[in-house]
């Protein structure tokens, strides 16, 4: 039986027919293709790479970018619903799609030349190319302005040097969007984006070992050792930190929806278990303690659903602010962590097994809590937005 979703506030009617159709397609795909393999992938620490062609065929990659580049041209609510459904399966697969669409295709679309767009976007949408996004460095995570990767202009083009860390899709990528300073190390305005085919000499990636979270996702460290690039490798319209940050706003938007999906999966599992599991001669769902747990989960999920829907409508209207995206990412991921943990606890000892999903989601969500702007950084973004005082 497929996943039925969680809809206590009848939000179904607030989505258009086409938005619902998109959601149902991705939901069915996750049921059919991802759910049968995700447990093994997680245990084995392996991204389900064999699913990429199917995802591409559905049109999931860069789904909100225009049709002229081979994309589906969906609105942002439909895009959000895709992220919700993918993360209902696993945060790792949603991360893959977020990076490909929001962090690789989006910057090429927003800052690239017509030639770059024509060359890369259709192949990224079709899954023939896999992308990664290199901004974070070993010593510059929450403070990307301090990054020390350099791009020196030469007579023939550019030479890149530096190290990038925590890079989703890093090892399997065929192309990387790398952010580097073209000027002095303290010149934040000199940050620009570069399209780097990963087969270029001097580029190497190694898997991040020992992860206890996002195990079904490729996370890598990238080394750039005198990587020589042609002059047209730079994204011509990129300039300053606001360029990569605008990509992160796109990705965080998807995460706000994705977290709702993970929470829905955990709640659904907990509810089903509570009705089935008999202890002291009755289902544990008939006890006050578990009902309080379920009521809290349902309430928080429903609030988060209202939040994402309005956020999506604002984004489609073109009036959304990065701070509004921060609020939703911060709230929803934290909410999902809480829901996953309570679901895991409701499941008792069974909750630690991979055949149930809540603990996998819980472990994943700890990464999601930290990446794409940590929970705390989003607190500071909101704090600054309301007080006008920066506390970074």
């Amino acid at each position, binding site marked *: 039986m497929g996943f039925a979703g969680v809809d206590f506030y009848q939000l179904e009617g607030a989505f258009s*027919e086409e938005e619902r159709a998109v959601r149902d397609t991705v939901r069915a795909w996750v049921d059919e293709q991802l759910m049968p393999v995700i447990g093994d992938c997680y245990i084995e620490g392996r991204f389900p790479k064999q699913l990429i062609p199917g995802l591409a065929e559905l049109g999931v990659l860069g789904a909100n970018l225009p049709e002229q580049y081979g994309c589906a041209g969906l609105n942002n609510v439909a895009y959000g619903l895709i992220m919700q459904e993918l993360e209902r399966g696993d945060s790792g697969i949603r991360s893959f799609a977020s990076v490909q669409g929001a962090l690789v295709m989006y910057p090429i679309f927003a800052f690239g030349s017509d030639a770059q767009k024509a060359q890369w976007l259709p192949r990224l949408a079709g899954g023939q190319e896999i992308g990664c996004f290199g901004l974070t460095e070993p010593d510059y995570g929450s403070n990307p302005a301090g990054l020390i990767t350099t791009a020196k202009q030469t007579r023939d083009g550019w030479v890149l040097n530096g190290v990038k860390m925590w890079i989703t899709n890093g090892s399997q990528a065929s192309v990387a969007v790398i952010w580097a300073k073209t000027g002095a190390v303290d010149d934040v305005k000199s940050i620009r984006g570069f399209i780097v085919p990963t087969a270029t000499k001097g580029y190497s990636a190694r898997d991040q070992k020992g992860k206890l979270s996002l195990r079904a996702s490729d996370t890598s460290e990238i080394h750039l050792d005198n990587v020589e690039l042609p002059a047209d490798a730079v994204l011509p319209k990129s300039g300053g930190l606001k360029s990569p940050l605008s990509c992160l706003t796109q990705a965080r938007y998807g995460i706000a929806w994705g977290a709702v999906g993970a929470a829905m999966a955990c709640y659904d599992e907990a509810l089903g278990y509570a009705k089935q599991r008999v202890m002291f001669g009755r289902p544990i769902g008939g006890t006050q303690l578990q009902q309080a747990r379920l009521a809290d989960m349902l309430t928080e999920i429903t609030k988060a659903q209202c939040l994402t829907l309005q956020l999506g409508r604002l984004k489609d209207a073109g009036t959304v602010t990065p701070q509004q995206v921060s609020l939703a990412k911060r709230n929803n991921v934290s909410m999902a962590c809480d829901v996953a943990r309570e679901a895991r606890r409701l499941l008792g000892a069974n909750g630690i097994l991979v055949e149930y999903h809540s603990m996998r989601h819980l472990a994943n969500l700890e990464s999601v809590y930290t990446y794409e702007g940590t929970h705390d950084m989003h607190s500071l973004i909101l704090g600054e937005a309301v007080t006008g005082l920066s506390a970074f």
Partner: protein
Amino acid sequence: MKIAVCIKRVPDTEMRFAIASDRKSIDSAGIKYDLSDFDGYATEVALRLNEQQGPGEIVAVSLGPEGTQEILRKALSLGADRGVHLAADAIPFDSLAIARALAPELKDQGFDLILFGRNATDTGNACVGPMTAELLGLPCVTAVSFLEIKDREGIAHRELEGVTETVRFPLPAVLSIDEGIARPRLPSLKGIMAAKKKPIETKPAQLGPVQLTVESLELPPERTGGRIVGEGAAAVPELVRLLRDEAKVL
């Protein structure tokens, strides 16, 4: 080839449902609807035939209330070219009344094949396809589990109890499609967007006289709990006796 696929909007089989207060119908509150499962196979067959045999036209036809447009658009998102919505307040239970509304729409339109699902997942009559064929005077093969079309002639397999029957038929023909013939695809996101631009023609359904009506609908009795008749090998004779005399299954 020009292919018509006749599809039906039915309650999603994965939904829990209740019987309405009239005791004759399903309570529609909170019910989600979808394309009937077998009609999904029929649609897939049409799509594959035209993919294999070069361009043609696939017309999805459905009779029913307003929400019917949603399943027509699903067929369009899968790849059908246009839709025909025969509008009716409700879908009658009487298959002949439906067949009489469908037949004039399908007649003289140049269809090479008219496909139906083997049966609708809600009413399960498996009659509308054969009745429509009868009204159109066309050959009809039911419960088709394999299909090959070549030189205006078709070969179909039907899975019967313990035997596969192979049937040869000329085009045009009416076929009802069984499950398992081809795994239905999911609509792609581009397909969903493209469906918005494809035409759906709506006209009132000219239903035939309705002669059959549903008198009542009842849920099967709740299953009672099991009973432990004893433990170990000593319990076997008693178990066998109960299975024979009480349950009457031996």
